[in-house]
Structure formats: C-alpha cells, structure tokens
C-alpha cells in the first residue's frame, strides 16, 4: 500500500507557522515602538502650559507605505524611495512676531522630522494674495497647513483632506515652539494611519473634555 504524501498540508502548516511568527514579530516591534513613544512622551517636560491636543500622542498603528504617487510638475521627487504622504505648506504674510520667527528658524527641522516630505514655503506676495482671498486667515498666520495626499479622492466634498496649525494665534514663542513640536510629533506618529483626521478630532474632543474638567475644578476651587 503506497503511502500518500501530503506536501500541500505541510506547506500550509509551515506557512501558517511562518505567518504566526511574522505576526508575533510585528506585534513585538509595534509594542516596543508604542512603549518607546510613551516613555518619550512621559519624560518630556511641559513647562509651556499650552493646550496642544497632540500632547502625549502615541502611535498605535502599523506603518503603511504610501500608495498615492504624486506626479505634479512642481512636486518633490521622493528622496526615500516612497512618494510623500503629506505636503506641508507654510503661509506667512510677514508679521514680525515671535511665532513667525520660531517657524522660520525651524524649516529644516520640519523637513527632517517628516520623512523629507516636501515643504512648500509661500513667499510674502503669495501668502498675502492667499490671505486676501481668505480674509478670515488674517492674524492666524504663520500657518502650517498639511495636505494629506493619501486621503485625496476620499470622503469629503472637495476630496482634499488635511489639517493646520495656526501659530499666529499663539503669543508666547516658547508655546509656539512647543505647539510646533507636538504637532510634528503627532503627524509623525500617525503618518501610517489610514484616517489621521479622525485621530485629530478624537484628540480635540479629548482635550475639550479635559478643559471642561479643568474649568469645573477651577470653579470649585474658586
């Protein structure tokens, strides 16, 4: 009686084991990254006292490589082999304010911590023209606007998705720098997320609740 060989079963079992091993390894890496992020966040002093909703953000998402190629004439060539996830735009009409100086002094840092995603800096004339067309932006600049290229064509009326940081509304330069750092940290930690806007909304909601609790506590203390 001939013995039946079952290589497909062995191969299936082997592949299952291999998949399980990969999943465990990925989970371990992800966990270690989360722990590192938590430690880094908890160790960082926050002496500025600003109200950034991005404070203490931790990455809970697996990295996903960008799949939306950008091929515009003015777009940056991918430096790290991947098309960029975000386009960063700086709008600054030229107010002589400390937050403006903070932002301009840190253009290079923005690029460094954003996986070299392109940073587009509007000159004064371009910024003024844009703000004239959108007068509600007066006084809010300098603005760091982030366009999420992955979300293009998704939900929404225009298909454009992203978020912004209006540094012009922050008076204190230290708070402006802290806000910029927290903003970049949040973006970097969630750049693998499918829907980063949702995380921002969640953060804002959570921060709003914290504010409400703080106000109630202050009221009781008074």
């Amino acid at each position, binding site marked *: 009686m001939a013995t039946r060989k079952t290589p497909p079963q062995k191969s299936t079992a082997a592949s299952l084991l291999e998949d399980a091993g990969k999943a465990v390894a990925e989970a371990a890496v992800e966990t270690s990254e989360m722990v590192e992020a938590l430690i880094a966040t908890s160790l960082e002093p926050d002496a500025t006292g600003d109200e950034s909703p991005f404070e203490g953000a931790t990455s809970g998402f697996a990295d996903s490589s960008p799949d939306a190629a950008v091929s515009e*004439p003015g777009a940056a060539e991918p430096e790290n082999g991947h098309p960029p996830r975000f386009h960063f735009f700086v709008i600054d009409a030229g107010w002589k304010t400390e937050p403006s100086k903070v932002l301009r002094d840190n253009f290079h840092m923005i690029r460094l911590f954003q996986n070299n995603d392109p940073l*587009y800096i509007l000159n004064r004339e371009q910024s003024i023209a844009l703000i004239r067309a959108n007068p509600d932006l007066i006084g809010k600049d300098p603005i760091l606007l982030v366009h999420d290229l992955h979300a293009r064509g998704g939900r929404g009326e225009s298909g454009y*998705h992203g978020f912004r940081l209006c540094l012009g509304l922050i008076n204190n330069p230290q708070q402006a720098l802290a806000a910029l750092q927290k903003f970049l940290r949040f973006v970097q930690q969630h750049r693998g997320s499918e829907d980063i806007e949702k995380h921002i909304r969640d953060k*804002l909601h959570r921060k709003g609740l914290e504010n*409400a609790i703080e*106000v109630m506590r202050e009221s009781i203390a008074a």
Partner: protein
Amino acid sequence: MSEVSEAVTLVFFSFLMVAAGYEIKRRQQKLRAVYDVLDVETKHIAAGLEQMVQQGELRPYTGETVA
C-alpha cells in the same frame, strides 16, 4: 430669610454654571482655531496650494533658499 438665602444660592450657582460653560466654550474655540482639520471652508485653500504646486509656482524647500 431662608428663602432669600436659597434664592441667592440658586442665582450664584446658576451664574457659576453659565460662567463655566462660557469658559469651556471659549477654550474649545481657541483650541480649534489653533489646531483643526481642514473643513469645508478651508479645503479650497489646500486645493489652491496644490494647483500652485502643479503650475510650478511653488518649489519644495531644499534648505538652501526660501522660496
């Protein structure tokens, strides 16, 4: 006398609640003015900026010069 006291307490408590609500609203508005996602009113700004990139009016910052 106790009725007056209760009325004063009620008025004071109501004032406190209104003030707290106002302060919460103010902080939320400030927070959302500084940080927020692009809403319907601001999405067209992103569209305009991308158009400027496509037309070559904006070049990526390379660390050497500010456009």
